[in-house]
């Protein structure tokens, strides 16, 4: 979900995706390369992302991942699901009013 979300605004390559996630979460979350690439491959296999070779700002050849329409739908679905869970958890954790 996080990967899909960060490439939603603009196509990014693998390193940038990891960086952006760390940056956006203020270093609270970091994506290990060990899970990043299998996850990217899974998203490719499912058709959520599309990859193409581009040149980065630093002049390096990199593979950028772009969100597809299908990926967007998946992202929305996952976000709804997350929201539902988070709400549920929040309801349970809400401070109990003394009766």
């Amino acid at each position, binding site marked *: 979900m996080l990967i899909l979300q960060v490439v939603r605004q603009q196509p990014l390559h*693998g390193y940038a995706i990891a960086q952006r996630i760390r940056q956006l979460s203020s270093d609270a979350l970091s994506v290990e390369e060990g899970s990043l690439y299998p996850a990217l*491959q899974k998203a*490719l296999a499912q058709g959520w992302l599309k990859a193409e070779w581009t040149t980065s700002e630093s002049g390096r*050849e990199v*593979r950028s991942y772009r969100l597809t329409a299908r990926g967007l739908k998946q992202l929305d679905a996952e976000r709804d699901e997350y929201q539902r869970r988070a709400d549920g958890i929040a309801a349970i954790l809400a401070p109990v009013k003394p009766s």
Partner: protein
Amino acid sequence: MTTWLRRVWHLLNRRRHERELAREMAAHRAMMGDPDRFGDPYRLIERSRDAWGWQWLDDATQDFRLGWRGIRRSPGFAVTAMVILTAGIGLNLTFFQLASVTVLRPRPVASPDTLVWLYRQGPRERSSGAPYAAARFVREHNTVLSAVLMQTGAQVAWNDSDWVIDAQFVSANWFKELGYDAFLGRVFSEAADGRDAGGDPPAVVSYDFWKTVLGGDPSAVGRTVRIDRRPVVIVGIARPDFPEIELDDTAVWLPLDRHAFFYPTAGFPHVVMLGRLRDGTTLAAARESLRATMDALSRERPGLIAAGTWLEPISGRDNFLPPDLRVQIWIMISLMATLMMVVLIVASANLGNLVLSRATGRARELGVRVALGARRSRIVRQLLVETLPLGLLGTLGAVLFAWAAAAMIRSAAQLPPYLDLSPDWRTLLASMALATVAMAVVAAIPSWKVARQDLGAAIKDGGHQVSMRLDASLVRRLLVAAQVTGCCVMLIVAGLVARRAQRTLDTRLGFEFDRVAAVWAPLDRFGIAGAAARDYWDGMKTRLADRSDVEAMALVTAPPLGFMVNRTGYQDAPGLKVLWQRVDPSYFAVMRIPILRGRTFAAADGAEASVVISRRVALAMYGTLDVVGRGFPLTAPSQVIVGVAGDAHTILVNATDVGELYRPLRLDDHTAATLLVRSRSDPAGLLPWLRAAGGADPRAIAMTRLLRDDFARRTAPARLVSVIVGATGVLTLALASLGVFGVVSCAAVLRTREIGIHRALGAPAAAVLRLITARLLWPFGLGMATGLIAAAAAGALMAGEPFYLQPIDPGVYAAALALVGAAGAAAATLPAARVLRADPLRALRHE
């Protein structure tokens, strides 16, 4: 693009994709401050691979390669396994082919669904034919058939010689309706060859006849030849694959409408009637409509067919077989198929044991895999896939086997060319199904068994404990028992069949045919009947009587070893089929059938007043042979018994439930009689004289043959069947022996050390031998017991037509069991003895 397509696309371009992934990861590393934190790119690529879901394929390919390498490393095992699979599957395949071509698959005619055979059916009987006049009436007065096809067979003389060929008189639409044109020239057409056509009749000859007799000469078309002394013009050659409805081997087809041209005084014969259903007509609708037609016919011509007769349409899709016959054939086929499956099961059990033996030796290797984290399912999968190359080789071998067997059967049985026995896609499909069954036994059982062991422990002792446990496992013993069972069944059935063939081939038939020649003239076809027919035969006898080598002559209505059967039964002799025929008084002398009581016929005996019965009939009906002078049959007698003859099953040679009844010839019988001539020397020397004697009367054509040739022809199928079944039995025995040999060898090698200790401590050889072979005793006993029961059941099922086996034959049972026992003992003792001969000290050091 769906996910699935994307995955296939990835698989096809995997190399490129993985190269790109590696490049991408290299770039990623280069951008990182601390590249070492990235991890192992190869592992990442491997894990990325999982994302596409092709891991199982990679594993399978790997295991397959491993299996293939294993086969290449041990060619001895590979060849053995392939031979076993080839024989097991190939035999089944050959049988499947035969059954499929001869009965299961419809004849290759145009639209077999709408082509029906019209069986004439009455309240009591069914006949495959109908009078020609009735067929014509149906053709002209029905509303459900777009065409009526007719055919009637005849044996005719070729080109004024006395060489007899098979001819079929067919309706002019025969070829067209079956969907075949000519190979050369033309086939019959209603326009050119109908009823009103003049001139010499046309003939179509078969491709085979054209090739062999006419030398394959294209100018044969248009040639005038003579058939039954009439000129005919060959207008065409039939196609080599032209099918025959009744599985005949016809040499020449003639137009049925010109039947009278050949036999002007004979009248029309009975014909087989086929119909082409109009579009959308169901069988039931056709039956009802034709019933009305037949009712109209029986009102119009009461003498022609009995009232209440109807025509039963049987579709070409059912191979023109009525339901009861179909059931019989299915029973027969299932029975044979079961026997063939027994062979396959023996073969598979055998191979399964071999595979298990090999896996036993690999316990350590598998243990290492388990220690490295392979799951049990992965091990089973590995062992399964590893045997796949074997299965593929076996399937290939089996198809080759079936192909070779088809060629052999074709030439041995001289099958007509339209029965195409060569393997096709059905065969391939069947062979794959069979291979799957076989591999399930061969691979699944051992894999499952091996994977269940504590393979982790195998690393510690080199797999010895696991191997020993596998070797002692119940499955292994049951596999041996299955082999012994199959072996017993096959050998006993083979023995029973061989015994039956022996009965057929036995020269003590109760009659002697070796020096007898037969002269046959279809006088009825040439319009010679009654007194004229008697004079014809009297003339023949007179001409032959002068020859010194003619010992005796007799006329008979149903010649020995022929196909004419007159069967009846009497309530006084229940269960006995009585075959009756009319004979000259000298018949018994000609056939060397002893007269046990009384005498043969005399001139004074009235044709309807006296009978001679066979010993069997006398005993069954009266309980004694002293019946001369008594009435026949026992209750409500109408004739007097003048003599009792020895048993001589001249017609149904190998039947067990028949007796004979002889009656004097009547005047009317002469028109369809056969003259038997006994020679003092080799009867072949008589043939030219018989031909000359036949040729002396221009009114009819006489044909000659030797009874010993008829006998050879009659018994050829029995001989062929017993050879095939016998060979199958021997094959099964060899397979089972091989299996026992393998199991004992394996056990002996595994326990070499133990044996060495026993020997070093002074144990006698016999005790050690017992130690090794003891484990096989109960599987052997169990296998023999179940085999015996199964064989008895199979034998009982095959007691009736057409096998006529005698299910209870202690000799055969004992011989088969002794053979299995001896072979098993030999197969077990050989490897054990080898270990025993070895030096005990060497055996001790063995690891």
